[in-house]
């Protein structure tokens, strides 16, 4: 049996209490129904109802004047000159921005009439470049309300690992207590830490010590996007909410994994008095303790039930059974001829010269776009999911369609100091294309001389073969496309491992097979 956190919350009647505390009427609470899922923009189609609603909502808010308008909501955060009500460098940073996002979410639901709407998030841990829906000046021939022309980042600029990579995210998720995770309490200029619930502590700007979550991905993604996003009036950029939604999601992930919110009543007992607006323009003044759990506020970040510890063992068995399908894929020497059940396979011989640093090798394989579509549109678990349950994460990995490439009988030479990077359908590939590019698949290398060991029984050594999972890249590049491509161009670009050294490595497989595993 599995029980989702959502079910627990619903059964525990927390919804009612939370909604009352969040200044909503009982009728609104009933109308809202179950918490709405905030989804990743990763692979989201441009005409997805969520993106369409956000586009409409932003357009309507921009056209509005008065309290509930784009300009006024943004001014709550800050103006071109300075922050207004938002706390930064202060332990109210996370709950304040949670309530702030909520005011947008509710306003957009009301304005568009789409009560199923929940803000999507830009999961920059998975998608290092700005989401495609936000970088095109037009959509369907009309001005795109999500586009902001003053941004510094170009669509091909990528956030580096040092800002949003797995090492940083892991460092954030293991932080404890709350004040090292979510920025510490304010300390006044007289060097006395906050000792009462006066409203002035909320806006005691930079009075705490920023934890990694605020100092690194939060601050640096603002600066990376640049333009308005790098300034105090950053909420004028419609990408602001998607960035902060991911910050909010990481807070949620941290608490789901057992991260303890501060027990200090100076934190949980603070009310953000008249800081926000309800959709009708009336003030929304939640207390921090109202904001600790998303579900009573009408949204959630996961729709996949998490296994209770007692169910983990049986799930683990299911994972083993599912993974047999994948084992058979790796066990055969030619997927295209073996045709394992449930697998569509395609192959191409390699006739081009071996890849060198100066000239990458591209192998084009014709595939059935219909077979590829479920891969591009598969639902992916939120990043950091594995921190909650490794078993669940494994099961998620095995569920749904996936696509692999197998590089067979690989010839290589002079591979010292050479990293072989694999990209997919990249039109601008060069040795300088970073591993954070959306077309990047993965890297491989070789150890020791080719054929260093004799073959079994004295036979000639076999050339190595490599399996590469293309799924995430296909999702990233084609998830938002109506139809996936009919050609997959697998590209191998050698680069130097140590930039100062020579990289003369070459590589060439004899053929490339593509396997698409159906769900």
């Amino acid at each position: 049996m599995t029980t989702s956190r959502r079910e627990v919350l619903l059964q525990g009647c927390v919804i009612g209490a939370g909604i009352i505390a969040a200044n909503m009427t009982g009728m609104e609470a009933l109308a809202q129904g179950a918490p709405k899922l905030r989804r990743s923009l990763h692979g989201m189609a441009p005409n997805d109802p969520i993106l369409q609603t956000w586009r409409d909502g932003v357009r309507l808010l921009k056209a509005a004047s008065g309290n509930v308008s784009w300009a006024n909501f943004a001014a709550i955060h800050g103006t071109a000159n300075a922050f207004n009500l938002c706390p930064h460098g202060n332990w109210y940073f996370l709950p304040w921005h949670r309530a702030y996002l909520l005011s947008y979410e509710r306003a957009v639901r009301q304005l568009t009439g789409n009560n199923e709407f929940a803000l999507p998030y830009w999961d920059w841990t998975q998608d290092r470049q700005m989401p495609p829906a936000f970088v095109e000046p037009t959509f369907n021939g009309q001005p795109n309300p999500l586009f902001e022309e003053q941004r510094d980042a170009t669509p091909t600029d990528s956030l580096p690992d040092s800002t949003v990579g797995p090492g940083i995210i892991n460092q954030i998720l293991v932080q404890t207590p709350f004040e090292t995770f979510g920025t510490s309490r304010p300390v006044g200029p007289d060097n006395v830490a906050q000792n009462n619930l006066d409203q002035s502590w909320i806006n005691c700007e930079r009075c705490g010590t920023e934890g990694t979550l605020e100092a690194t991905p939060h601050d640096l993604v603002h600066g990376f996007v640049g333009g308005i996003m790098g300034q105090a009036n950053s909420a004028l950029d419609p990408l602001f909410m998607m960035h902060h939604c991911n910050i909010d999601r990481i807070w949620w992930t941290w608490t789901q994994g057992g991260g303890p919110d501060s027990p200090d009543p100076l934190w949980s007992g603070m009310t953000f008095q008249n800081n926000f607006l309800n959709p009708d323009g009336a003030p929304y003044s939640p207390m921090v303790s109202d904001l600790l759990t998303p579900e009573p506020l009408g949204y959630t970040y996961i729709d996949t039930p998490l296994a209770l510890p007692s169910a983990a063992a049986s799930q683990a068995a299911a994972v083993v059974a599912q993974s047999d399908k994948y084992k058979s894929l790796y066990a055969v020497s030619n997927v295209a001829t073996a045709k394992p059940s449930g697998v569509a396979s395609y192959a191409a011989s390699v006739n081009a010269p071996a890849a060198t640093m100066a000239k990458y090798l591209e192998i084009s394989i014709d595939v059935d776009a219909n077979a590829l579509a479920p891969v591009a549109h598969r639902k992916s678990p939120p990043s950091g999911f594995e921190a909650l349950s490794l078993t669940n994460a494994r099961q998620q990995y095995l569920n749904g369609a996936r696509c692999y490439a197998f590089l067979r009988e690989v010839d290589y030479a002079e591979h010292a100091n050479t990293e072989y990077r694999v990209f997919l359908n990249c039109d601008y590939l060069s040795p300088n294309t970073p591993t954070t590019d959306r077309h990047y698949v993965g890297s491989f290398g070789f150890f020791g001389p080719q054929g260093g060991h004799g073959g079994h029984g004295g036979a000639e050594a076999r050339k190595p073969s490599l399996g590469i999972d293309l799924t995430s890249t296909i999702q990233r590049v084609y998830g938002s496309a109506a139809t996936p491509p009919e050609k997959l161009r697998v590209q191998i670009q050698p680069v130097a491992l140590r930039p100062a050294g020579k990289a003369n490595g070459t590589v060439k497989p004899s053929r490339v097979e593509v396997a698409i595993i159906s769900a």
Partner: protein
Amino acid sequence: MSVRRLWTIGAGCALALIAPIAAEGDQLLATVDRPAILTATPAKPLQGAAADQPAPRVIVHVTGYQPPQKGAIRGVVKVQKPDGSEQEIGTFGVFPNTAFKADFSRARRYGFPLPKELATGAVKLKVEVVPDKAPGTAEGAQLEVGGAEIQ
């Protein structure tokens, strides 16, 4: 001498007592060509602050910032290990990306986990200014570090 002036001097003296003091030879201004180099010394927890902080952290106090002529920067914090090599312990950004100058008591503070094996006493820190995008130069950017401590 006015009461206000006396009070200001008194407050300044009090701050000097609790503020991390830059050691001789510290270079506190970081540019893209030249890192800030300073010593972080252990400090007692602030009065009233959370007492259950288990892991040592380095707190870097940034008292001034000048953005680059174009784009934004990352501040990269490295600690010198006993064998002389360096270990990166964190990266931070300045948001909003606008110039500021603050006295020590209003400095922007950034905390980074310090490996326990390095938290035995004072440590040498390097704070580098790095362009936030690959083709950037970060020309004109400056970070002024007021001090650092280990908590």
